[in-house]
């Protein structure tokens, strides 16, 4: 008469899943901290060109973004196939760039206002004419620091 039942042979013990929530939480916190919520959905095609002599843009709080590219399929009918500027969530004309930058700068804290960089996220297929016009507008409002945002990679692939 044994008090302890013998375990049946060949039965594997179940793996404890008690620590699963901990692991998942760890992952969760990682993604929560690295996530940057997209503040505007892209309405233009935006395949950035490659470059290898790049500098990292630190300090996201002092960057204003301007997107340029062809309207995506959805918007092709209304806006045509020519490259367009996107500011925040809507398409804009070149003449609106200046006032947009000024209003964005005004939203930033006082001490950062003279340190704003304008990041140009431009599709590699866009024409330089539009970019030159934007640059001209930026000069008019004295927003002189710009950054051509690129992906890291071989620059010569842009030529194809």
């Amino acid at each position, binding site marked *: 008469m044994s008090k302890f039942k013998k375990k049946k042979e060949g039965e594997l013990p179940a793996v404890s899943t008690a620590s699963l929530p901990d692991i998942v939480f760890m992952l969760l916190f990682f993604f929560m901290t690295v996530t940057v919520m997209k503040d505007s959905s892209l309405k233009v095609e935006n395949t950035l*060109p490659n470059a290898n002599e790049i500098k*990292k843009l630190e300090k996201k709080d002092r960057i204003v973004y301007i997107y340029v590219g062809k309207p995506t399929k959805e918007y092709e009918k209304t806006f045509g196939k020519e490259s367009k500027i996107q500011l925040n969530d809507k398409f804009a004309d070149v003449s609106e760039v200046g006032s947009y930058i000024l209003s964005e700068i005004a939203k930033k804290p006082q001490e950062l206002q003279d340190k704003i960089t304008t*990041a140009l996220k431009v599709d590699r297929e866009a024409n*330089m004419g539009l970019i030159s016009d934007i640059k001209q507008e930026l000069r008019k409002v004295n927003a002189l620091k710009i950054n051509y*945002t690129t992906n890291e990679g071989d620059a010569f692939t842009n030529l194809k």
Partner: protein
Amino acid sequence: MARRGGAPEVSAGSMADIAFLLLIFFLVTTTIETSAGLDRKLPPMEEILDPPVIKQKNIFTVVINREGQLLVEDELINVKDLKAKAIAFLDNGGDGTCAYCKGAKDAESSDNPAKAIISLKNDRETKYGTYVTIQNELVGAYNELRNREAMRLFKTKFTDLDAEYTNPETKDKLSEEAYEKLKEKIKRIQQLFPLILSEAETN
């Protein structure tokens, strides 16, 4: 049977499910941002009253046409050769005032890196991708020369110094003195090879 002592335990079994749900949400919404690029400064708007006279030999003209072809100093060249040409031009040191230059000292090319100007002109229909490649090559030329000088003077690369300087953590890590020193070093290298890139208005 009456309960004794404390509230009943809440089952934590579904915690994993909830956490998974959140995890998947963040996984889907995450965009690890590409926030790197070529920094450039635009010239201010005000008109210069009497522009200084610049000798033609101190200007390195780069013209890109709408097909993305490259004309450097009135010569059609391949984009791959641009960097070497730009380095040769910047590093020339024609008038002998530049002690650290290792170039050909050709009298027909630039006098001094401080005087050497790269003039970039592009067509309105040039593709942005091409333009970035050209910019990248020109910045690459400057970086290579600056790296060389930084190696000679401080035994590190200029690009590493610069990356350290722009990294927001550096300011907390280093003492104020060391931080100032780093800034000094970068300034010194930049003075040896100042980045002078003039962009003509397109037509």
